[in-house]
């Protein structure tokens, strides 16, 4: 693998074009597709290509986390949501034409502003001669983990007010994010739980609850019928058996 990278100086550009084209292309797929299941699949591919760009920019740990947490966790959750709600009317949903026109105008102008800003600063658009000495793998997991505990091993040489006394560590945000995740997951589990059938108060929820009740009732009936069918030979006196009515 090393030999290929050394022999061919344009590998960074090559992989950048591949990953950027797939990320942007499948992003367009998410936007333009009407089918929500296809949108989910395109999103998986787009975010996977984004992880490839992270690897290319030298952020190996974040790229791996993007693949594991984002593509492997968040998007699987989203796909479960798609599976739970993709009933026949909601798989394909058209966008109104006036929405498309307005969104294209606003999005296009926003894109113009952002691209102008991205290429505006000389410091950012200076091309870097990326040679192989710079790109050798750096072990970033340990500095990142230590920075989360408040120790910046990558800034040991620096001095100054901002770096002293552990001020540049990320212990506090780490704790806040941990508590936030705990609260969010408890809240999500509480909100998404299946509710018992209670007396309805308003029209729409009562209709939904009636539908739920009917569905449950139907499944109960189905269970009874299968019971009757499977036990017909054994229990001739089963009151549910329609043959006993004669």
């Amino acid at each position, binding site marked *: 693998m090393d030999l290929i990278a050394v022999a061919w100086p344009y590998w960074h550009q090559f992989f950048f074009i591949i990953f950027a084209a797939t990320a942007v292309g499948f992003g367009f797929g*998410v936007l333009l597709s009407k089918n*929500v299941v296809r949108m989910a699949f395109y999103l998986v591919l787009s975010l996977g290509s984004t992880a490839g760009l992270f690897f290319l920019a030298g952020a190996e740990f974040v790229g791996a986390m993007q693949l594991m947490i984002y593509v492997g966790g968040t998007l699987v959750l989203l796909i479960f*949501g*798609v599976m739970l709600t993709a009933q026949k009317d909601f798989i394909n949903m058209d966008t109104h034409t006036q929405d498309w026109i307005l969104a294209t105008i606003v999005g296009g102008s*926003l894109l113009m502003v952002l691209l102008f800003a991205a290429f505006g600063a000389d410091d950012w658009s200076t091309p870097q001669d990326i040679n192989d000495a*710079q790109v050798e793998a750096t072990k970033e997991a340990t500095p990142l983990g230590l920075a989360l505990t408040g120790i910046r091993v990558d800034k040991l040489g620096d001095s100054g007010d901002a770096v002293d006394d552990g001020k540049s560590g990320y212990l506090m945000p780490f704790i806040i994010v941990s508590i936030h995740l705990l609260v969010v997951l408890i809240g999500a589990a509480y909100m998404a739980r299946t509710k018992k059938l209670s007396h309805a108060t308003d029209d729409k929820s009562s209709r939904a609850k009636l539908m739920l009740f009917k569905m449950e009732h139907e499944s109960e009936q189905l269970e009874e019928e299968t019971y009757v069918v499977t036990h017909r030979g054994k229990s001739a006196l089963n009151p549910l058996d329609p043959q006993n009515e004669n």
Partner: protein
Amino acid sequence: MLLIGTVSVSWYLAVGAVLFVLGAVCMATKRNLLGVLMGVELVLNGANMNFIAFGSKVLRPEGSLGLDGQLIALFVIVLAAAEAAVALAIALNFYNNHNTVDVDRANELNG
């Protein structure tokens, strides 16, 4: 390859900008609640791309954000996971109560 010469931070920023705009337009136009959520994910990734590009020592040998950019990107990923969990719970609740995932039907507070 000769098309773009050597890669600079701006190219990564351009990809991030395109992803951001695609996500924003997706949020604005989709009628499916899950489609709106996918737009949010695209927006967060577009922002993350900027953090990674500015934190990259390969792309900016001097003046890069260093580890700070990657740390913020990690926080964004974690918060996106939390956001997806809560938003999905809300979406399922909405679906259970209204029998639809069309966001245009959520207009009961309309004055």
